[in-house]
């Protein structure tokens, strides 16, 4: 970096030079040029910047068509009780300028100055407004309503689940195959390989995968199969170690837990794929789980797994990788089925309730779509119906 030191100095010089011509040429007398560029500004309006955390105003204006456009427009701001300062320069093309760093509650008046040939030629009349912070983002009310609605539905059903009423859940082929996959591995005395995807713990699919790992580990502890969990993220490795240790504890087999089988390979996507392929061909696992977020390496892993003759259960919400898992794996959990796995395997009332809540949420979404489509279809010949469609579009539109 050392030899780069001279560069900033050089640039500071260039920047200073660049700014030079902008300075007003005091000798030119603005008065006699003013009339040719009479009031160039129309509809100058200043408002508090909406939906922000305060201290900002938005200035909008239109240039009157008649006068020839100026070179640039200078924006001057004078907060009440403070002196005027230059807020910014814009090219004539733009018609909106946002000004920040002001004090909330202090009215501030804005004037616009048109510059041509290096001197001010026209000045708009002052318009003022008071910057303030909004407590609620006006354009995200629709999403807020839907978020609260979905959350309420899900929590309501979680509580209903707790009250012990039995909840039906349809059969998911991939998940009911977990038992015989681990059983098969135990019989053949070959390990079970669990691949949690390649993203970090901030990714919800990886979180869902960790929860499923807990259930799978409980089975391998119970059956006494050898569980391998290679990781590409360090945080996921630590969580995996915690989850598996806890499952082995719960199953009463703390001795069978081997921490070195849950290891870190590399953060590199394809370094990880190469490493896992090596594990597959050398350890020859009889059951392979590929659950979480996958990208291009999905087929490298699935095809190698197929070549060592393992039962493969895959699951991801990545639409681009689902075709490959369907092609190369025995069972594939598609999208939401990955998130249903923890409830399906544990049959805990709370989690089954949450699943029921997700179904009702889907019903809400489907109703919004169907009503919206019918309303906008009817809208083409019966105007009021369009307002219903527009309401639904507003509800689902988020700025």
């Amino acid at each position, binding site marked *: *970096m050392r030899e*780069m030191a001279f*560069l*900033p100095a050089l*640039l*500071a010089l*260039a*920047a200073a030079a*660049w700014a030079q011509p902008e300075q007003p040429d005091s000798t030119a007398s603005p008065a006699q040029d003013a009339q040719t560029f009479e009031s160039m500004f129309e509809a100058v309006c200043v408002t508090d910047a909406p939906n922000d955390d305060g201290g900002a105003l938005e200035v909008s204006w239109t240039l009157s068509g008649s006068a020839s456009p100026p070179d640039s427009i200078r924006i001057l701001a004078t907060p009440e009780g403070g002196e005027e300062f230059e807020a910014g*320069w*814009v*090219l004539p*093309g733009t018609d909106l300028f*946002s000004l920040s760093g002001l004090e909330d509650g202090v009215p501030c008046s804005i004037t616009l100055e048109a510059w041509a040939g290096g001197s001010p030629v026209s000045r708009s009349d002052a318009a003022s407004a008071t910057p303030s912070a909004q407590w609620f983002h006006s354009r995200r009310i629709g999403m807020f309503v839907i978020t609260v609605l979905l959350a309420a539905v899900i929590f309501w059903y979680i509580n209903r689940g707790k009250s012990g009423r039995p909840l039906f859940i349809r059969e998911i*082929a991939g998940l009911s195959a977990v038992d015989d996959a681990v059983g098969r591995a135990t019989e053949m005395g070959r390990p079970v390989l669990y691949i949690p995807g390649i*993203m970090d713990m901030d990714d919800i699919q990886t979180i869902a995968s960790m929860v499923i790992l807990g259930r799978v580990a409980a089975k391998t502890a119970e059956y006494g199969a050898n569980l391998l969990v290679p990781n590409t993220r360090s945080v996921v490795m630590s969580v995996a170690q915690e989850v598996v240790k806890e499952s082995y504890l719960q199953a009463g087999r703390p001795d069978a837990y081997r921490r070195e089988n849950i290891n870190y390979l590399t953060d590199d996507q*394809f370094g990880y794929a190469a490493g896992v392929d090596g594990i597959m061909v050398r350890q020859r696992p009889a059951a392979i789980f590929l659950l979480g*977020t996958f*990208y*291009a390496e999905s087929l490298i892993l699935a095809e190698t797994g197929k*070549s060592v003759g393992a039962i493969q259960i895959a699951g991801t919400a*990545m*639409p*681009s990788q689902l075709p490959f898992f*369907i092609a190369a794996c*025995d*069972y*594939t959990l598609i999208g939401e089925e990955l998130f249903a796995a923890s409830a399906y395997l544990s049959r805990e009332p709370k989690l089954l309730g949450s699943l029921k809540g997700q179904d009702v949420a889907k019903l809400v979404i489907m109703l919004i779509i169907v009503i919206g489509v019918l309303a906008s279809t009817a809208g083409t010949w019966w105007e009021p119906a369009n307002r219903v469609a527009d309401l639904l579009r507003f509800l689902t539109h*988020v*700025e």
Partner: protein
Amino acid sequence: MRKLLEKLDRVDRRVIYVLMALSVFVPLVFRLDFPIPVGGGPSRDLFEYVDSLPPGSTVLISYDYDPSTMPELQPMAVALTQHLFTNGHRIIATALWPQGASLSQEVLSSVGDSLGRTQYSDWVNLGYTVGAGVSVLRMGSSMQAVYPQDRDGVPYDSIPMLRRVTVIRDLDMIVCLSAGDPGIHAWVMMAGDRYGVPVGGGCTAVSAPEFYPYLGTGQMIGLLGGLKGAADYETLVREGAVGCPPGTATPGMAAQSIAHLVIMGFIVLGNITYLSVGKGRKGASR
């Protein structure tokens, strides 16, 4: 005939691998070529939007990929940069993937020198930032907070062409060349949806279907899908501006077409042998 089909049914994976290798290496060694018709669709939409940018616009190109996806995305970056420089626009390069920074430097300096464009007045390389969508979100409130200095350590506010770009909304357009995450999703979510900046993109053919819904809802104004998208854009740019050096995507398309046909042949062959031989045997469940 039945004997042949039975042998085909149990053919070894490695035979398929050898055939695949031949179908790619042979056309390349003998340099076969095919004409590229560029129909309507996302590639042309992106070209026309870039072509219609007002003069002196500032476009941000984000290099969100790494060398392993260079064959598809680098030709897009070169064609896009040629197009923007010949139309007299300014380019800001960013990267949400670490290696994207050096990839952008390669394109900007080589294309810039060939078309007489200089650093800091026509283009600047802000380099890599961690944080994916979160960094894009932060650019909404202040570009300088995310990039206090450019890739060579020059402070943000001392770069002349960045004088007027304080927040992401000041940009005329964003093009994200994306090989996965972080990539187009982050720019559409955080820059397009939130701040209304028009977002175009280029991606590997594998992730193109994922972004089609964004084209449908207008959240994206154009998309280059895979090597074909790159070849489309190369052809369109070369139609417009004379004297552009030929790209690398077009020759690759010939090898692509042949290998493509070989794979389709495998699908057809695979199913014929299966239907005729394995009538009794139940295939693997879905």
